[in-house]
């Protein structure tokens, strides 16, 4: 763990990408193979099975440090990270250890099936052999979400630096179903037959939001347009007699969407489609909240399958007859996709959404204004001659979303954030007025500048009326403009509505409390846009 801890320290000490890439590249050149493999795994979201739940971890850490649990729980939101809180609160270790990262991964995996008393002894023994940084990393291995300032993209760049292989190739190699148990450094990084894993998707190409007017994109003839759907981005991979459904977060979702299995009846082997999964009413997408019911389910009850059937709106073809098409122009890929889907029946779970005519930009702007009626959230613009790149790249693909809906709301609860936002109040609950009452209807976390967060934090500290654990009820005073993408009726929320992507658009210092919007205003928005 010492080498991995040193890597972490180098990464953590810098905010500069070049320093982080250098540190990781050095590690990939020097570390033992198993440590390299686990490092790639951790930074691409593949973590060992959770050996201990966080409730037990907190209890054991509190007990070991001689703190009552309440004191631990008070310290946690100040630190803003569970693994770090534990690392800091424990007394100094009495021993030390020269074991590797993969040793500790193995240690955790071996204990996963042991009785709880044994797991406790193992965890306490580990804490007593690791210094503060090593402990933090050990705890991170348990709690997961290995977010320590290294994105998968940055890690891939470092890997490219260390191996001399092109970054897009490595990005593709790291996709899919592998684990450090099933793959070796050679099979993952070096072997010529990179397609050994039949399920492997391609790295997704992501669009930027178009901020400038579309006229800045040049002549409209060079562009293709389609609705921007509000669903789940997915790749459907058909290979080796099987089908695989991948999310953008590289999660395998095949079993969650069983209706896609019959795509194998219509489409040939060696086909990879990129598109949007949406719940479908037979003619148009249902709201995102209908799809949301499906997202959390690993197995789907028949009733839900009937209520919210899912289709893939396929808008790109990445592989055809086993050949990688990504370097071909979009217009060509799209034509081939249309040919491929032409014979597919109307009730099939894979559909080809229509393209929007791009005669001139003002005409398209008028179509975009109707996006909500088409149950879309805006328009996608793709350059006709664009290849399918990997990751978020500017220039060829743009999402041109509708302006959000907005409502002026009153802040009533505040809670401190996590990680970089620890010790700052950044998570707020907002209410609308209802006569003399305030009805909470949404939370929002983002949209303010660091300076504004600091200012509101100082205000919250001085205007707390009541504390419920980490949550503070504050004097209703400040009005914020809340922007959101959609509104739905919801029985789960007291206000009766659920918002899509709420965030703080502006701090309305000019507005007194009495000018905040009302529950009636919110219900009127629900009638129009719900």
């Amino acid at each position, binding site marked *: 763990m010492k080498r991995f801890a040193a890597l972490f320290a180098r990464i953590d000490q810098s905010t500069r990408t070049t320093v982080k890439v250098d540190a990781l590249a050095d590690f990939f050149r020097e570390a033992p193979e198993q440590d390299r493999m686990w490092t790639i795994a951790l930074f691409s979201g593949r973590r060992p099975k959770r050996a201990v739940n966080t409730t037990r971890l907190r209890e054991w850490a509190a007990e070991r440090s001689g703190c009552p649990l309440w004191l631990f729980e008070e*310290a946690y939101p*100040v630190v803003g990270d569970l693994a770090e809180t534990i690392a800091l*609160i424990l007394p100094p270790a009495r021993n030390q250890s020269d074991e590797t990262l993969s040793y500790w991964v193995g240690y955790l995996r071996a204990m996963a099936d042991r009785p709880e008393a044994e797991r406790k002894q193992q965890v306490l023994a580990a804490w007593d052999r690791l210094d503060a940084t090593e402990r933090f990393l050990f705890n991170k291995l348990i709690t997961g979400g290995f977010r320590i300032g290294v994105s998968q993209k940055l890690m891939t760049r470092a890997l490219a630096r260390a191996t001399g292989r092109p970054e897009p190739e490595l990005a593709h190699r790291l996709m899919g179903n592998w684990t450090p148990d099933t793959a070796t450094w050679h099979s993952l990084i070096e072997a010529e037959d990179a397609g050994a894993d039949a399920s492997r998707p391609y790295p997704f190409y992501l669009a930027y939001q178009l901020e400038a007017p579309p006229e800045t994109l040049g002549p409209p003839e060079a562009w293709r347009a389609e609705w921007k759907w509000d669903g789940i981005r997915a790749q459907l991979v058909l290979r080796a007699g099987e089908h695989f459904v991948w999310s953008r977060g590289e999660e395998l979702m095949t079993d969650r969407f069983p209706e896609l299995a019959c795509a194998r009846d219509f489409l040939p082997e060696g086909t990879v489609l990129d598109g949007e999964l949406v719940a479908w009413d037979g003619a148009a997408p249902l709201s995102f909240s209908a799809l949301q019911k499906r997202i959390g389910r690993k197995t789907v009850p028949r009733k839900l399958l009937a209520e919210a059937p899912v289709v893939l709106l396929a808008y790109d073809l990445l592989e055809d007859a086993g050949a990688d098409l990504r370097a071909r122009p979009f217009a060509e890929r799209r034509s081939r996709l249309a040919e491929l889907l032409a014979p597919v029946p109307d009730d099939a779970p894979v559909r080809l959404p229509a393209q929007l005519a791009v005669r001139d930009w003002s005409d398209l702007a008028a179509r975009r204004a109707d996006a909500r009626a088409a149950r879309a959230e805006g328009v996608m613009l793709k350059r006709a001659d664009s290849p399918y790149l990997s990751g978020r790249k500017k220039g060829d693909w743009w999402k041109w979303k509708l302006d959000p809906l907005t409502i002026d709301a009153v802040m009533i609860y505040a809670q401190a954030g996590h990680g970089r936002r620890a010790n700052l109040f950044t998570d707020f609950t907002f209410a609308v007025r209802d006569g003399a009452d305030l009805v909470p209807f949404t939370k929002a976390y983002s949209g303010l500048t660091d300076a504004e967060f600091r200012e509101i934090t100082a205000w919250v500290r001085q205007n707390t009326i009541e504390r419920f654990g980490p949550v503070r009820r504050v004097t209703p005073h400040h009005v914020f403009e809340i922007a959101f993408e959609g509104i739905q009726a919801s029985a789960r929320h007291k206000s009766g509505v659920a918002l899509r992507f709420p965030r703080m658009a502006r701090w309305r210092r000019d507005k007194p409390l009495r000018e905040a919007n009302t529950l009636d205003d919110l219900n009127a928005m629900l009638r129009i846009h719900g």
Partner: protein
Amino acid sequence: MGRQPVLSFTPRGIYCAAGDFYIDPWRPVDRALITHGHADHARAGHQRYLATPSAAPVLRHRLGDIALETAAFGQTIRIGDAQISFHPAGHVPGSAQIRVEVAGEVWVASGDYKTQDDGLSEAFAPVPCHTFITESTFGLPVFRWAPQADVAAQINGWWRQCRAEGKTAILGAYSLGKAQRLLSMLEPDIGPILTHGAVEGTNRVLRAQGFTLPDTVPVTPDTRAADHPGAMVIAPPSALGSAWARRFGTVSTGFASGWMQLRGVRRRRAADRGFVISDHADWDGLLSAIAATGAERVFVTHGYTEIFARWLAHIGLDAAVVPTEFHGENLDSEALE
């Protein structure tokens, strides 16, 4: 009717009725006893001031021409029906705890303090009392300070590395106390030490009092990085990343504070290096200081007050929170020290 408490907490500050004086008041009063020169403890506008001789020059430097008397550490003075004396708090040079005795009952107002001896400030000395008034800036068990020598080794190591890479090291630290403590920890043979005007102003005052600090070069509008290769620059935190700092070319920035213990704060601060060092007591320091007074009653004035008071009650003390306008080591505003 019960006896008047030795000290009471009023909207103007901590008040002694028997002696008709205030300790570190935040509104103008007739007579103010001052623990130390930081802005949230030593404010302008009082008629008369009383402080230690070693705190006096900094008070005059910051507050100008004030009516200031001094009392040496340990010297007992009678004010009305109260006996008062100043005792080292170890927070910054000249900082004191104030002991107040009325009719045999002893209270101690500790201001800000640290139990670790920094080699520059007069070292903290526990004062037995019935009632102790404490801060709790770092009153959580996640705050534990490493020995000063370890932090000195980290800072000097960073400086050497900067020098080797042709960078100027800029270390942000509050201009009274922390800056001089850091100066005293540097190894001057590594390179020249440059100081921001706010830091150098305090340096001059403390040197004149006899505190030993390494040689420093004040930064002026004409200062150029090329003339001072391998330099370490000590500046207030607000100067890091400002136009002022641009003159140093390629730099590596560091920030020295107890808050650097927390990774989230370190990342938010976005300095290249964060050094965990504070002029306030850590969790163990606070608890050992309180235990050493033998006090049965404790008032907690600033910091993680509710949590810390709850812990004190948990270990059997009569503890309560009192609201004040002290700030301790400020996390998000840098104007205060």
